[in-house]
């Protein structure tokens, strides 16, 4: 102990505390990421070929457009469905609220892989949903619910809904009840109060949730790989494909760099837009 105390006295306690985690993250997180960025430009000489190829080949542009389309659809549905859920939770009695919150929190923390597997069991050709629909006499031929964009979006919405529910809920709960009383005593009906008070006041939560879902959707890997299949590749799956199948590392690095920069820029925007407007507890 005294040896440590001497060390601390000489170098300052904060530095000594910070050094191990910083060195660890620098070595195993920052430097490897920098290597990815470097590897996309130098192979070994400076080249922009990989980026040019990404922008010129229709195949890769298709992957980027599929990624954006799936992400935007996911955001839209997460906002609409998430708002409905958050509104119910916010207006329920405190005891019911506890229980309803559990319905959001518990699935959120369960393994993403396992939940994807369960969805595959539900959506596949001989899956539970097709069985049920056939038993009810609604269909004769099994529906193609998987290996298409619809399946991917349904499952991604299921995974990402909590990211909109939590911030919308916290901005709904932050609205002062006085505003509702004022609105109704001034003669506004419930629908008008919702449109003129509730909705605008909860907008920061909606924006925060939407941005967060969009950011996470862009880098989604498990769902498109399992539920989407080869046809509905998103950018993450294309990166994986180039590392493990094609073994074209520099090109994969270039793709990864695009995804990384996009994510970081959006996250920066998100952090600035949320700053001070949402309570810290808005996210799990």
């Amino acid at each position, binding site marked *: 102990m005294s040896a440590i105390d001497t060390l601390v006295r000489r170098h300052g306690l904060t530095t000594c505390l*910070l050094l191990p985690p910083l060195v660890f993250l620098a070595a195993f997180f920052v430097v490897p*990421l920098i290597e990815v960025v470097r*590897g996309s430009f130098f192979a070994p000489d400076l080249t922009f070929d990989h980026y040019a190829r990404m922008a010129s080949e229709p195949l890769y542009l298709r992957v980027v457009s599929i990624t954006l389309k799936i992400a935007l659809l996911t955001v839209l549905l997460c906002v609409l469905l998430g708002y409905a859920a958050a509104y119910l939770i916010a207006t329920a009695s405190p005891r019911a609220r506890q229980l309803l919150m559990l319905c959001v929190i518990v699935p959120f923390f*369960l*393994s993403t892989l396992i939940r994807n597997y369960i*969805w*595959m069991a539900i959506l596949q050709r001989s899956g539970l949903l097709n069985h049920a629909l056939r038993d009810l006499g609604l269909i004769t031929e099994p529906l193609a619910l998987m290996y298409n964009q619809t399946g991917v979006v349904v499952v991604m919405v*299921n995974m990402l809904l909590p990211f909109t529910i939590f911030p919308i809920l916290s901005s709904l709960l932050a609205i002062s009840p006085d505003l509702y009383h004022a609105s109704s005593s001034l003669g506004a009906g419930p629908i008008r109060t919702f449109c003129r008070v509730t909705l605008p006041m909860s907008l920061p939560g909606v924006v925060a949730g939407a941005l967060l879902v969009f950011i996470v959707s862009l880098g989604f890997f498990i769902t498109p790989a399992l539920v989407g299949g080869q046809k509905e590749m998103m950018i993450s799956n294309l990166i994986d494909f180039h590392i493990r199948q094609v073994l074209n590392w520099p090109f994969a690095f270039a793709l*990864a760099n695009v995804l990384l920069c996009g994510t970081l820029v959006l996250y920066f925007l998100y952090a600035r837009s949320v700053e001070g407007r949402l309570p810290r*507890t808005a996210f799990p």
Partner: protein
Amino acid sequence: MIGTRLRRAVVWLLGGSVLAFLVVPVVAVVPMSFSSSDILELIPTRPGLVQYERFFASPDWMQAMALSFQVAIGTMVAATVLGILAALALWRLPERVRRPLEGMLILPRIVPSIVFAIAIYRLFLDVGMVGTVPSLVVAHTVMAIPFVVVMVGSALRSFDHSLDEASRSLGAGPVTTFFRITLPQIRLAILGGALFAFNVSFDEVVVTLFVSGVRSKTLPVKVWDAIQHEITPILPAISVLVIAVTLLVLVPALLIRRRAA
């Protein structure tokens, strides 16, 4: 009055369906896991524990589970120690320096896992560490640190500074002060952070797919392989077991977090 009732009914119907959409799939897997047949059925015609027996009798699956626990416990220890150090340092820094550092420590949660996966895979390939337990622990620790920093950090913010100062002014060194004064007050938050760290590792699949190599497959990686090859009837049983482990770890962690908030 009827209008109010009707509106509540609509709110419950819409919101309730969304919550059901979240919960039902997770619950549906429980009856599925008791099936004795090789096809998936929601309500088993001949319920039994066949799939569970199959899982526990398979040396392959047992090995994967043992490895998962080994890596998760290693990650829990490493991430907790590094996370506590970081949280303590951040707590002592002025706002201006703290903010950017905090941002950097949280970054592993923001960077897409596939990007981190290929980055760390490249590093471990270069040093010949792919497929080793330490490499898995290191990769998972990077991803688990943010959880510990956030939990311990929020506990420290609500901690009474004057006790710390009193201890120092009475002549205790910083290390003694930490173990005698600070630690007892943030014990619960540390436990919560540690449990989250365990959970991060126990569930991780994307980065693990790359780093684990051919031989050392964790439970999620084996599940991934099994899903890719066929929908095996053993998977619902494994899903239920994984969910059970997660709940066991998570429920105390969530309770601790709620107490802190």
